[in-house]
């Protein structure tokens, strides 16, 4: 009975969705045409997605970082933190040696993705997740007590708060320079030559702060999930 009602509901939903998709009107795209034609001049970043995320819609990105912060806080409150539980899996020497061989390269990839975010695909979120995966791989392979000794939980929460506060402070620079909050080119910062590493004003610094914040937040989430009463 329950499956019958569910099937009827799902078929109705599918019909509505498909008719909506196939009769969707082709809207006017003035805003994206403006971004494509003058995005490089306005922001100095040749990757338009980074230009939208960290310049035109930087306030949205601040909200997204707040969501990650709230999720990490909720996880840390939900899961008790008295006793630390080791994973039941034991790995051989080959796994441990190859993981410790991979880790420096992962660090380089993460930093490359963060600092070249305005020139190539990548950015603060991707690089931050790659940096968080270093902590996660260490935790899975060597156990959580070793991982907590290498990167202390106090350091992780400090890095997360540093990233969040740094993002807001770089946003306030725009107000001090005479523009709006999170303003970059409008406030008169030097945009440099598009395509070079030190171009596009404040975008690389905001990228770095977001990367720190995402890396610390996701590793805090993982270590909170792994703990047990």
């Amino acid at each position, binding site marked *: 009975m*329950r*499956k019958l009602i*569910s*099937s009827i*509901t*799902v*078929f109705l*939903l*599918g019909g509505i*969705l*498909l008719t909506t*998709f*196939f009769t969707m009107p082709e809207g006017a*795209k003035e*805003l*994206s045409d403006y*971004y*494509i034609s003058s*995005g*490089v001049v306005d922001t100095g970043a*040749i*990757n*338009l*997605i980074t230009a*939208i*995320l960290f310049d035109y*819609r930087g306030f*949205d*990105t601040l909200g*997204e970082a707040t*969501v*990650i912060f709230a*999720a*990490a806080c*909720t*996880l840390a409150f*939900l*899961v008790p933190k008295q006793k630390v539980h080791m994973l039941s899996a034991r790995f051989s020497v080959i796994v441990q040696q190859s993981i410790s061989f991979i880790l420096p390269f992962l660090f380089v990839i993460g930093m490359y993705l963060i600092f070249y975010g305005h020139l*190539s*695909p990548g*950015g603060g*979120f991707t690089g931050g*997740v790659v940096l968080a995966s270093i902590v996660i791989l260490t935790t899975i392979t060597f156990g959580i007590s070793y991982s907590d000794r290498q990167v202390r939980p106090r350091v992780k929460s400090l890095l997360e708060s540093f990233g969040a506060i740094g993002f807001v402070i770089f946003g306030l620079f725009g107000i001090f320079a005479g523009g709006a909050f999170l303003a970059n080119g409008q406030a008169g910062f030097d945009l440099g030559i598009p*395509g070079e590493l030190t171009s596009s004003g404040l975008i690389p610094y905001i990228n770095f702060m977001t990367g720190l914040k*995402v890396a610390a*937040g*996701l590793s805090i*989430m993982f270590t*909170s*999930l792994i703990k047990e*009463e």
Partner: protein
Amino acid sequence: MNSIYAVVGILICIGFYTILTKTNLIKMVIGINIIESAVILLLVALSYKPGGSAPILDKGYELVVDPIPQALALTAIVIGASTTAMMLALIIKIFSKHHTLDVREIRNLRG
């Protein structure tokens, strides 16, 4: 493009059916993940233009795909990962209290 729209509709239906009929909590989270991926595929498909290149304006581009839906999709993926982590933490708490993942038994225990 039409085939992508059809696949998005089918995937949303699969995820919705999973949420409605399965009684396992982890299966419900998987259904929510499938719906989320389908919506991201819809956003990316809306941004695509035939013959367009990726929105990185290095040199020598003629037609560029729409960058706004891609930026929205990027935001959605990261938020989806953190909400998934929150759902899994709630599942761990439910399991440590009721020792089951079945939705019906949890409802019976509440009385």
